[in-house]
């Protein structure tokens, strides 16, 4: 039973690291600011949730697991809100979205 929980926690850790890598590759390679925000807002939040949940499965007492679940809930609420604030500021100051015709 203990080894089964260890294997599931390791799957969560490696999956979370994979989502972090995909989000950062999207941040480097996308052509426009709004598309980059899509990549990081989704990939980063999900990767952090998965890694911290995998750590909470391996906690030695109940209080540490509850604290890690609280961090996950806070990140799930806070990261999209921060993305929305930055996006609204960029739209109000005139950053124009990328269209398919200008190939750069």
């Amino acid at each position: 039973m203990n080894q089964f929980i260890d294997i599931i926690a390791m799957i969560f850790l490696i999956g979370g690291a994979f989502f972090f890598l995909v989000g950062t590759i999207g941040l480097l390679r996308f052509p426009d600011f709004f598309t980059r925000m899509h990549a990081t807002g989704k990939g980063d939040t999900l990767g952090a949730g998965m890694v911290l949940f995998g750590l909470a499965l391996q906690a030695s007492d109940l209080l540490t697991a509850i604290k890690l679940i609280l961090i996950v809930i806070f990140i799930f609420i806070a990261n999209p809100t921060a993305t929305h604030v930055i996006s609204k500021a960029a739209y109000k100051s005139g950053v124009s979205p990328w269209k398919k015709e200008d190939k750069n």
Partner: protein
Amino acid sequence: MIYISVSIFLIVTSALCLYRGIFGPTVFDRVLAINVIGTKTTVIIALIGYYFSQVSLFVDIAIVYAMLNFIMTLVIGNYLEKEMR
């Protein structure tokens, strides 16, 4: 073994993300890069706590850093919206 390898992988990924923080065409790209590095740092702090077997101390530090990262992004977003008008 698994904790230190995921930590080194996340440090390399966040150093790659610094490229967008330096060479981003607009100022909003740089704010986005700093938010990404902050989120990765909270996860790295929790992993280092598990590696050195002092879990209770480092999880408390990770809670504080997650809140600090969120507040900093909100404040600079509000300032940029009022300033660029």
